[in-house]
């Protein structure tokens, strides 16, 4: 009798350990957050956490077509800031990002958005040529052109990526090489250094985790 109880206890322990292990991984939320009182569907007031989101934007894409945040509706996307004449970190960033792009090329829920910070030279036709030469031309990977103000504000305030003009830098601009992962509700869910292969591998693992959140 005693033996049976012990066996049962061990079995229960084993089961609970296994189920605990199966708990799904969830990506963190980045940026500022605040509590807000909201009404749920039944009209009951409750307090909820509101996370920082990417605001509405409107830029010209590589085909000189006005493109807004609507293009990313219902998709998770990876955003980054670069410029075409950059000889330092951008080629490495986009070399790595291209491998992510190729991994998710058949998944319609994943998009890529690259903003140029070279508002003087990187007009849409320059971006078009760059995209073609990179071999990724198409609506899945947007290359966006905007005014200095709009792009720089979006980078620093919303995507939390530092960018700037710097006459002492070799190519005239400085910026961080983050690949920022945005969910379908426009919240920041990850930032990966695009120049480091291991962080880019992590991004490849995290995109399916984020997509799984929306499958339930």
């Amino acid at each position, binding site marked *: 009798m005693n033996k049976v109880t012990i066996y049962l206890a061990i079995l229960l322990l084993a089961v609970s350990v296994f189920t605990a292990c199966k708990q799904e991984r969830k990506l963190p939320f980045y940026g500022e957050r605040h509590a807000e009182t909201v009404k749920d569907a039944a009209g009951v007031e409750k307090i909820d956490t509101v996370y920082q989101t990417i605001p509405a934007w409107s830029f010209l894409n590589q085909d000189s077509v006005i493109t807004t945040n609507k293009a990313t509706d219902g998709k998770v996307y990876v955003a980054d800031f670069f410029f075409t004449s950059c*000889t*330092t970190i*951008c*080629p490495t960033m986009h*070399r790595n990002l291209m491998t992510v792009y190729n991994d998710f090329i058949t998944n319609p829920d994943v998009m890529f958005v690259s903003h140029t910070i070279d508002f003087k030279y990187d007009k849409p036709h320059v971006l078009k040529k760059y995209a*073609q*030469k*990179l*071999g990724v031309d198409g609506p899945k990977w947007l290359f966006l052109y905007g005014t200095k103000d709009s792009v720089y504000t979006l980078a620093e305030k919303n995507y939390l990526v530092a960018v700037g003009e710097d006459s002492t830098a070799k190519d005239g601009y400085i910026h961080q090489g983050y690949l920022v992962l945005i969910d379908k509700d426009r919240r920041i869910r990850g930032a990966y250094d695009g120049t480091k292969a291991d962080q880019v591998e992590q991004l490849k693992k995290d995109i399916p985790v984020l997509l799984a959140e929306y499958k339930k």
Partner: protein
Amino acid sequence: MRKYIINALLFISLVAIIVSCQNQETIDLQNYMSNGKDIYKAKCQNCHGENGEGLRQLAPPLTDSVFLKVNKSRLACFIKNGANESLVVNGKEYKEKMPAFPELADIDVAQVMVYITNSFGNKQGFVPYSQVSKDLENCK
């Protein structure tokens, strides 16, 4: 008898000179290769890739031994002054501008050039830095 000894000594010292010369060149090559690799990582790898594979149509690969051989005397100029002309590498045309690296001294250019021309499937051997200095004076 004495003649034989003197001849033998001469012969031995000649052989020794040749052997030590080769050794010096091998040592130089190794030096250039290891320093050149560091410079490559810092200045070239971003665009040309870890294994010299290039970046699609944006940056040419460094694996075209024929191109490297034909343009051998111009390689130093490309490295130091960049390139602003269309180049055909591996049968493909590349039109993007390559930036200049004026901060590289002649010896740096020589080292990175020796590294590139003896890596990624290339095997052109050693080029002394005096030759590279001469090449650099004749840049267009």
